[in-house]
Each structure stands twice: as structure tokens, then as C-alpha cells.
């Protein structure tokens, strides 16, 4: 789960990581109070979960897809600007009136931020972060993530900050330092000072940078984070360090220890269908471009099902891992999501029961066909736990369904069903 920059900075501040003075505002009143305290020279940053916001653009809803198409047709394009007429997601201003001129368009009712990562609809802007401008001598990169192969935290740092670390890694891999963290020791200040020194920070900044790195590690540990990233942190004109950006990813699996991370979550930044899937307890749903709606158990089999459809010339309309099915209403909820997608021309249900029992899946399918009045052709492939009962349930129900025992055969049926269904809907037009 991602959180906003202003929330990441709240966490940083609470853990003693130096950040610029400022805060988030959604109303003009809040903005004025922040400007009075931290002005006159400020930076105003749109708060969205998508990346690429500096190069992105703040526009009204009716213009988002045009801007998006411009951005993706030219990957290096800067659509938005930091000052001037074309408003990007990060803006500079001097004085209260100028700052409010930047603040208002961000908080307008139908304002959206479009970046290369948002898709053609853009994303709503949840708040504006208003901060003091900083005098920057040099920019650096710092992050803590989980190194799965070695089973320990990994710190990545570079003296070439403020740009994409993937890009630095490609062009100058020696400029990227990797420091594995012993999880028993953690990351005490002396390790931080040693890293600061390797990054070539001046002597005045070694101690504060060491403290900052150690404190960022505390954020990572205390919050059950999967990522803490500061790009950039800067060496200021005064010779000390400051985290001027902040990104924190939280581990959804650990939410039970943190009150569900409710205070950090912002549902306005999430895809509504994906929220619906989550509320129905469906493992995972991702919308795709094709026309065959898929309901599968297990992420691996769900991906393999998409792969098989494509090899047979079909296109999946979604990725859906239904998880372990032990109640039939879960099947109905999953099919409701699929049926409500106007792109779906045929439905492919592929369940290989282990923990999941396929007789319960079959009962769910029968109920769903009746309850949801499913019109699209339905292909069902069941295998695994209680498969005989499952096939009997489908057969005895008399619902219109095509079945196959093997994955390849079933995928072929689904691809043909989608083709026929598309032809039919075209001839009806």
C-alpha cells in the first residue's frame, strides 16, 4: 500500500528525520495558515499516489486522455512545468497571493493530475503539500527495501540523486551503493555515518546524515514498510541534510499490527473496481484490455490462464485471483465484477481446487448464472478437490455452460466463444 508524500513526511518528522517546514492543505484557510508560517518562498506539491507528477499536468477531467496520449507518445516529454502556464504537479511560488494561485487549481472540484503512470483518466488530487523552499547544494538518493533473495533489508544510496535510480543504475552502476542490513543489528548511526562518508558528504554533514539514515531505518522497521525512499535528500547551502521528498510503501500483510493502516490509506487514489473486489474478499483483480473475463484460483494459474488465452489468439479482460473458495457467495461476487465489465464478451472460469473445493465453486457458478442473469457465454474448467461432485452440480443444473477437462481445450473454447459473441453483437448493431 502506498501513502502520500505528506504522510511519509509526518512519519519522518515523528522519527527525527529532518524535512522542510510545511504541511498539507485542502482548503484555502489551511493554505493561508501554512503560507503565513512557512512563506513567502514555497513549493506546492499535488498529493497523488502516482509517480511522474513533476512531468505530469494538472487539468480538468475532460482533457485528461488527450494529455495522457501526448505523454505516452513521447516518453521524455515534460507536459507540466514548475513555473509558467502549463501547470505540473510540483509548483514554485513566492508570496501568499502567487501561492494561492497555484493552490486553487489543484483543489478545484474536477481537477485531475495526469502523468505517464496514471492512465488516461488521471487521478484526483487529495491535498496540496505546501513547504518552504530549500537551498540545495547537491542531491542524493537513499532507499531501504526488502531483498527477497537474501531475506534481509537492503539500503540503496547514490550521490546522483534527484533522478530515476534505475536510470543511474543503467548508465553508471558504480554510482549506486548497496548496503545489506543485518536485521539483528538494525542500522545504527555509526553505519549511517559510514554510508554518509562513502557518499562523499562533507564533514559537516556526516553526523546529521548518519542520524537521518538510522532514523529512516526506524521508520522502515516500526511501520512494517516494504519501501522507504528519499529521492532526493539534499545537502543544503548551510551544510546539513534534509529529506525533500519521501515515499513509503507499507506491507498490507502487516496491517493487522497497525489498525489496518486506516489512518494512512486514501481510497480516492485506488481503482473503484479493485476496492469492490477487495471488499468482496477476492484475492486480487486487475483490469486489462481484452474481452474474455477470467475467474481463476491462484496468482500463478491466473497468469498461466491469461498466457494460454493469448497463445490461442484471445485477450483476457482481467486478471482475477479469487483466492481460496470455501463459500459460494465469493464466486457470485467475483462473477458480478466480471459481468459488470462492459468489455466482457465471454467468461472463462478455471479452478484447480487444493484448499478450494470445486463443488462449492460449481454451486456458486449455478447461483450466479441465475441471480446475475449472465448473458455472456460461459466456459468452465474444474479440476482438483471434489471435482466429480463439482462437475455433477454443473451438469444437473441445466445451465448453459461449455466445459472442458484440460486447460488448453478450455482456453480454446473460451476464445471461440468470445469471437462468436462479438460477431453476434456486431450483427445486432
Amino acid at each position, binding site marked *: 500500500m502506498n501513502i502520500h508524500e505528506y504522510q511519509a513526511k509526518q512519519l519522518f518528522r515523528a522519527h527525527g528525520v529532518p524535512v522542510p517546514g510545511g504541511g498539507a492543505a485542502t482548503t484555502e484557510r489551511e493554505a493561508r495558515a501554512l503560507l503565513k508560517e512557512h512563506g513567502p518562498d514555497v513549493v506546492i506539491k499535488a498529493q497523488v499516489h502516482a509517480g511522474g507528477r513533476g512531468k505530469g499536468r494538472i487539468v480538468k477531467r475532460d482533457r485528461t486522455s488527450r494529455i495522457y496520449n501526448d505523454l505516452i507518445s513521447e516518453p521524455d516529454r515534460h507536459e507540466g512545468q514548475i513555473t509558467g502556464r502549463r501547470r505540473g504537479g510540483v509548483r514554485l511560488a513566492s508570496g501568499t497571493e502567487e501561492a494561492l494561485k497555484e493552490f486553487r487549481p489543484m483543489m478545484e472540484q474536477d481537477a485531475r493530475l495526469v502523468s505517464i503512470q496514471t492512465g488516461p483518466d488521471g487521478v484526483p488530487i487529495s491535498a496540496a503539500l505546501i513547504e518552504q523552499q530549500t537551498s540545495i547544494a547537491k542531491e542524493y538518493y537513499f532507499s531501504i527495501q526488502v531483498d527477497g533473495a537474501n531475506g534481509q533489508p537492503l539500503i540503496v544510496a547514490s550521490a546522483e540523486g534527484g533522478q530515476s535510480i534505475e536510470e543511474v543504475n543503467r548508465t553508471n552502476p558504480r554510482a549506486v551503493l548497496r548496503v545489506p542490513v543485518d536485521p539483528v543489528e538494525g542500522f545504527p548511526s555509526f553505519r549511517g555515518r559510514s554510508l554518509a562518508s562513502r557518499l562523499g558528504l562533507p564533514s559537516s554533514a556526516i553526523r546529521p546524515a548518519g542520524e537521518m539514515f538510522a532514523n529512516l531505518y526506524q521508520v522502515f522497521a516500526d511501520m512494517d514498510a516494504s519501501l522507504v525512499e528519499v529521492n532526493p535528500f539534499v545537502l543544503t547551502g548551510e551544510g546539513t541534510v534534509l529529506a525533500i521528498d519521501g515515499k513509503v510503501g507499507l506491507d498490507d500483510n502487516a496491517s493487522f499490527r497497525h489498525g489496518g493502516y486506516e489512518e494512512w490509506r486514501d481510497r480516492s487514489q485506488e481503482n473503484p473496481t479493485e476496492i469492490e473486489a477487495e471488499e468482496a474478499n477476492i484475492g486480487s483483480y486487475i483490469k486489462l484490455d481484452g474481452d474474455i473475463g477470467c475467474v481463476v484460483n491462484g496468482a*500463478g494459474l491466473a497468469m498461466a490462464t491469461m498466457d494460454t488465452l493469448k*497463445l490461442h489468439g484471445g485477450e483476457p479482460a482481467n486478471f482475477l485471483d479469487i483466492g481460496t473458495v470455501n463459500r459460494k457467495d465469493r464466486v457470485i461476487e467475483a462473477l458480478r465484477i466480471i459481468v459488470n465489465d462492459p468489455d466482457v464478451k465471454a467468461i472463462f472460469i478455471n479452478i484447480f481446487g487444493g484448499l478450494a473445493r470445486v463443488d462449492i465453486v460449481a454451486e456458486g457458478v449455478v447461483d450466479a448464472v441465475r441471480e446475475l442473469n449472465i448473458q455472456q457465454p460461459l466456459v468452465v474448467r474444474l479440476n482438483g478437490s471434489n471435482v466429480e461432485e463439482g462437475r455433477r452440480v454443473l451438469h444437473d443444473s441445466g445451465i448453459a455452460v461449455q466445459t472442458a477437462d484440460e486447460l488448453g481445450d478450455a482456453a480454446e473454447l473460451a476464445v471461440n466463444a468470445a469471437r462468436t459473441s462479438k460477431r453476434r453483437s456486431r450483427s445486432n448493431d
Partner: protein
Amino acid sequence: MSILLNNRTRLLIQGLGNEGQNQIRRSLDYGTKVVAGVHPGFRGGDSFGHGNHDFPVYATVSEAVEKTQANCTIIYVPAPGAADAILENIAAEVPLIVCITEGVPVHDMIRVRTALANSRSKLIGPNCPGIIQPASRCRVGIHPPDVFMPGNVGVVSRSGTLVYEAVDQLTRAGIGQSTCVGVGGDPIIGEQQQAILRRFNSDPDTDAVVLIGEIGGLAEQAAAAYIKRSMNKPVVAFIAGATAPPGRRMGHAGAIIEGEAGTAEAKITALEEAGAIISRSPAEIGSTMRRVLEEAGKYQPPGPPAE
């Protein structure tokens, strides 16, 4: 008797909630030797019965091991307590720990991996289907037992349901399995694919291996490096997610380490260069293995079950 399990495996089940009970009944029906349960304050009292089988239930793993000489634990404990259960088994020096649980926090797994490094225990999982060995009727997991058949092909996979899919195809193609291992789909797991390949490589009961990977991480590259260096048995590989849209599962963090390495194409290339035989379609794993075995003269038509 192939890898990890054998007919001397004495299974301990930890977590006798509804799902644990359902699954252990199916393992008992399959023929697995279950010697003990651990479930503090178990509502069924101090033993668990199913048909002709029953086993004692203890409050702690160390007591269960001491009283029953259990040498393998299957953990069905829910996510908040799963890491604690693994650590308890490491402390009790249980040689093989299999954790089925999905949703274990990654920071918990960092602690587990640290404890494992200085221990006598090996861990499979979490977030995995477990291990099954058809010849010894040993089911340590959540598999649908009917699709499995004894034979000479090993299976190792990150995905659980793809183990079942691959095995179903193998069995339909007349190919039995020596041992099937689901290593788990989480960022941090116990034994990874290459460690399982190493076990299969020195296992006299395994003549070939099915390797099933998926996009994200670097585990398949590590497996490819092992295959290139040391593997002297054929490996048939499938990588799931070749058609998945990029960027959703691999977040920024993964991309920093991996770059392009996390894509299916990069993994397929690495495995192909290492000498693995790639099944591009997940529906052709069984037929590909059949061809490979026949070419190697290792195809054994299924006979009557061995006594």
C-alpha cells in the same frame, strides 16, 4: 525415496483450526503418518481422531517432538502467528518445517530467515501448497491427492495451483512424480528453487524435473545458473506471466534491483541458455516432459502400484 520426505517421515501438525483439521484428515486418508498435533488449548482435548487414526495434541512443539520424535512440521497457523510458529519449530530443532500460511508480514520473514541461518532446520514456504511424495503416500500440504501418481519426475514451483496443473498434465501423459515441492510465492521464503533443484539432482529416484516460475524476483535466474553449472538431469520449465502487463506486481523497489531481469522473457532466456527445455504454453508441460523422457530413454509407463 526421493527428496525431503520418505516413509520414515513423522508429521506434526501445528494449527488445528477448521482448515488444519480438514487438511490433516485428507493427509491421514492418503496414508501419511501423522504422529502429533500442536494447538495450545485445543478444543478437542488432548487427542485428535479421524476414522481409525488418532494422534496426541500438545501445547508446545518441543513437548510434541520429545514425546513422539516428530521430524517434520506442517504449519496451518493464521498469518499473525505464523512466524512465531516457525520460530518455535526452529527452536525445537525440527529438521523440516513446511508453512502453508498466506499473508505472513515480510518483516516477520526477515526474522525467520535470520533464525534459519543459524539452525538445523529447513523451511519450505510460507504461502505454498507444501510437499507431496506419492510413492510414500506422504502429503505435507493442501494438495488434491487424486491427481498425483508415483513416478520419476520431480516438480518445483512458486505457484501452488500450477503444481496441480502441471501434475495433472504429467499424470494424464502417463508420467508419475517423485516429489512435488511448492516453494511459495512470497518475496522471502525458506528454500528457493535452486536449492530444490540441487536436491533433485542428487536424488536417484528422480530422472527429470519440471520447474515452474513466474515474473518478478530473481529466483529463476539463480535456478538457471545452477542448471548451467551442475544439473545433469533434464529440466522442463514454464514461466507464468509472459503476457501480464508490466508494473503492477513489480513495484518500484523490485525494479531497482531487478531492472529488466524480472520479466518472463529474461527468465526464459536465462533458462534456455542454461539448457532447460521451455514449454511456452502452460498447457504443454505434460506433453513436453513426455517427449523429453522418451528421448532420454527414461519414460516409465505407469504399472500396477508398487507394494
